[in-house]
């Protein structure tokens, strides 16, 4: 894995629109790896509160996010005043398989 990557996992805990099987499997695979990673309960909840931590996340140079639709995730960060860098990679746990998401998160 790239030494400069930052991995972020969103649990979507406040509304459960991400299939539980996918999000559990992704988290399980991350836990099986040796990688460091960040997890948040819900990016929507953070954006609603303009959580300053979104700014810290957006400041990461090589960001990989497991959440939902990329258009929505970018919109959430922008609306919270912390737009994501162009190169941020967003994996969609609502449409992609756990394997696809995890491989993209942990790729070299």
């Amino acid at each position, binding site marked *: 894995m790239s030494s400069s990557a*930052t991995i972020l996992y969103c649990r979507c805990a406040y509304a459960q629109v991400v299939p539980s099987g996918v999000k559990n499997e992704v988290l399980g695979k991350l836990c099986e790896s040796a990688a460091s990673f960040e997890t948040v309960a819900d990016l929507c909840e953070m*954006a609603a509160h303009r959580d300053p931590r979104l700014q810290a996340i957006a400041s990461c140079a090589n960001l990989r996010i497991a959440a939902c*639709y990329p258009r929505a995730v970018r919109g959430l960060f922008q*609306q919270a005043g912390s737009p994501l860098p162009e190169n941020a990679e967003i994996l969609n746990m609502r449409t992609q398989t756990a394997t696809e998401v995890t491989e993209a998160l942990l790729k070299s």
Partner: protein
Amino acid sequence: MITHTHRPLRVILYEGTGSIALPAEARAKVMMALLDKGYTVTRSGQGASPVPHDDRSLLVLGAFEGKAPALEDVTGQIMIDTRDITDLEPDAIVSLVEKTRGDKPMNEPGKWKPWFPVIDYTRCTNCMQCLSFCLFDVYGVSEDNKIQVQNNDNCKTNCPACSRVCPEVAIMFPKYQGGPINGDEVNENEAKREKIKVDISSLLGGDIYSTLKDRSTAFKSRFSKERSADKALDERKKCLTKLVGDGFIPADVLASLPSTDEILKKAEAAKAKAAAALAAQ
């Protein structure tokens, strides 16, 4: 403005030097349990770059073999707690975190749903129709005359009505089930052919519901069942009906619901605000 501002404790699951790593299954179970309670959790392992820390307190969990080290932030700005989790089951670890948090308030999943519109500014043309359409003052205009979401908390949970009338498909509700309202990609060809043209003044004048219904009967969207003036009408009406129907709503809230006269005033005010913003561009 937003009222639910209690930020969660940041928990660090430390598995570096001086600690013993948890089995993967237990690690996952602990993280799931903490996340489902609303905490943010960092797994400290190898390789990836961490997210910089902010000004919140830290709780460091690790299997330190009996004695958790006392840690102090070199800047003196952040309170760091450490707890030893050697031989603790995941449930006991969660209890330990809850006990450490004490009575500090925190938002918790299940008690509130983060439901509010998110504007896709790559699509938004600043037409201000959403500002005029929403009866609850969710939208406003920025100092540089751009439409923006200003009052998230005013948005009525599960009501995506404004997104259905946005002519550019630029309004998303990430917690919504169907696309493109949930943020799914927009089919550009279909969107161009089926842009929903809404005459806001006619929608909001007089009997808004019958007016909108008449219009939507005449207008059949081929683009998507998810985006229609008819659905928008129904949802806006449901929001109002639900607020009235829920017996626990205080009288002052009931009294604040828009009447027809108020809606007309809102329409005029929104129209003026939108016109001023557009003229200033």
